[in-house]
């Protein structure tokens, strides 16, 4: 099996226009979550999100495309034979919200083709939708395609906007916070949306050598599961997520004791965060490994969330440090000693990251340095 390296990555979020900016601001506990100004306030009172201010200062034909352009522009050389996977979760939202007659970039395949044209590389690729685990699943598929020799290089790209469409939906489901997003806090009351984009280039060993990409962080395991329980609520016992995590650890040839730290989905909703701690306890017992969430800082970036977190995890594993969990004041019972409002240093070479989404899907990846 081929080893799969994270050769290059780029992110844009409300917290910054590069991985470096995001990392620096995460490490000092900053949050980009503020009142939304680019559409009219909702009567429900749920009007917080992490937006990218200059994305809304002028007109764009497609803001999703503009976000993609911003991350692709940061990448170094992308091999011509790269297989492209698009993993944005609601690419059609600008079309649906617009006045009748507007067309252009609508279908998921339109974004993948645009990326291919922008990078002037071959058109092969696919689109993946696994709700808020979309880019995590896309990376898992990319990893497996490289690992089995189907591809030598895969580019996973995702972008999602803070839109009225999604804000009203999560408001209707009573999943949003009106105060502050506090992942794993005793008093958390909901998530805040965020907008962002990610591009992750995965390559095999030969391609890394040929193009001179760093061979620092590898993806060595993936697990994908379904709760088979509810389409908008997680399974209370965390069994589905635990199943995905155990699968990823097993594929990497490691054991739970080898996992040094865990980047959780950590949305700030009561049910998600409880479910994740239940899953962590199933897998790790009462071990107090460092756990963190970045959604109190950049909001929930939907399909792009997993990819953005993987890019930041690659930085975390190099620095042997996980960032503070912004918004945390009093950790919930099982998060105590795991999730902290300050950064945590860890020893070891393995980091776990996971995401869960509507439709009951869970996806987990193991990163090693």
């Amino acid at each position, binding site marked *: 099996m081929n080893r799969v390296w994270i050769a290059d990555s780029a992110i844009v979020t409300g917290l910054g226009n590069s991985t470096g900016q995001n990392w620096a601001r995460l490490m000092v506990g900053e949050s980009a979550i503020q009142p939304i100004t680019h559409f009219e306030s909702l*009567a429900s009172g749920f009007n917080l999100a992490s937006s990218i201010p200059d994305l809304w200062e002028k007109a764009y034909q497609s803001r999703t495309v503009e976000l993609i352009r911003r991350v692709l522009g940061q990448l170094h050389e992308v091999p011509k034979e790269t297989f492209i996977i698009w993993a944005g979760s609601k690419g059609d939202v600008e079309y649906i919200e617009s006045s009748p007659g507007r067309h252009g970039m609508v279908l998921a395949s339109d974004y993948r083709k645009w990326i291919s044209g922008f990078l002037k590389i071959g058109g092969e690729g696919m689109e993946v939708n696994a709700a808020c685990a979309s880019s995590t699943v896309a990376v898992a598929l990319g990893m497996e395609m490289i690992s089995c020799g189907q591809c030598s290089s895969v580019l996973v790209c995702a972008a999602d906007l803070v839109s009225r469409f999604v*804000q009203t939906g999560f408001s209707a489901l009573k999943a949003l916070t009106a105060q502050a997003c506090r992942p794993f806090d005793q008093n958390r009351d909901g998530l805040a949306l965020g907008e962002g984009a990610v591009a992750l280039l995965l390559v095999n060993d030969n391609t890394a050598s040929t193009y001179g990409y760093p061979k620092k962080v590898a993806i060595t395991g993936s697990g*994908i599961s379904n709760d088979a329980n509810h389409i908008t609520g997680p399974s209370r016992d965390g069994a589905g997520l635990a199943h995905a995590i155990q699968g990823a650890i097993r*594929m990497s040839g490691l054991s739970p004791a080898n996992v040094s730290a865990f980047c959780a989905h950590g949305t700030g909703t009561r049910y998600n965060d409880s479910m994740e701690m239940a899953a962590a306890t199933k897998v790790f017992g009462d071990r107090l490994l460092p756990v963190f969430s970045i959604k109190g800082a950049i909001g929930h970036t939907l399909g792009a969330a997993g990819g953005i977190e993987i890019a930041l995890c690659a930085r975390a594993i190099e620095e042997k440090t996980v960032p503070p969990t912004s918004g945390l004041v009093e950790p919930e019972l099982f998060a105590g000693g795991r999730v902290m409002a300050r950064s945590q240093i860890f020893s070891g070479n393995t980091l776990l990251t996971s995401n869960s989404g509507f439709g009951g899907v869970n996806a987990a990846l193991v990163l090693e340095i």
Partner: protein
Amino acid sequence: MTAYIVGGGWLSAAGFGYLHDGSKPQFPPGKALLPSVQDVFQIPPSRIGRFDPFTRMGCFAAAMAIKDAGMEVPLAADKAGMVVSTQYECMETDSIYYQTTLESGGLYSSPNLFSYTLPNIVTGETAIAFKLTGPTFTLGESEDHGLGYAALDIALLMLQSDQADVMIAGWVDHPFKPLAQHRGEPTASGSVAVILAKNTDEQQADRTLHYDAKHGITRCNKPIISIIELFG
């Protein structure tokens, strides 16, 4: 890697059929005809009355494939998952949902409709109905291959990488008419699904797929480029 096709079902405006009845799926323009719930589901999903058309068609095709395979429900004993490909996703539902948000500052937005504004929900509802605890997600339909190839390809990848022992691979589409008409594309609604298993008691050459990185998907040494080819 070898996988066995153990069941299949399809539905469209032309009617519906099963792998084992020898019918060849056809997808003419028009609204798909569905069999009755009682004919397809041993235990109907509790939320079936809420399903949007996209979810309903995809879940029905999966249920028909499971019935055709003679599999006992639920499937949790096997590590089973589902992947479907689609072009237009659930865009009609997106549009209908958004209309509910326009009044009174979004106060009366429909939480039920919003739940169906993600194309992977079809796999989630099917997972609940049949206790699929393996990988579930949706893919874009491949334009370089035939209908459902993308899902077939990735379902086999999931079996090969031990993410699952059984995969439902399918295609479902319910074109959003204003966009399909603008793009000059046909507006055929329908779905098709096959059950792929790593093991089966009845191994037949014409129901056996081979999958590897070099040759892709083959059956009897011939390349497979669509799910439709597996029927008839």
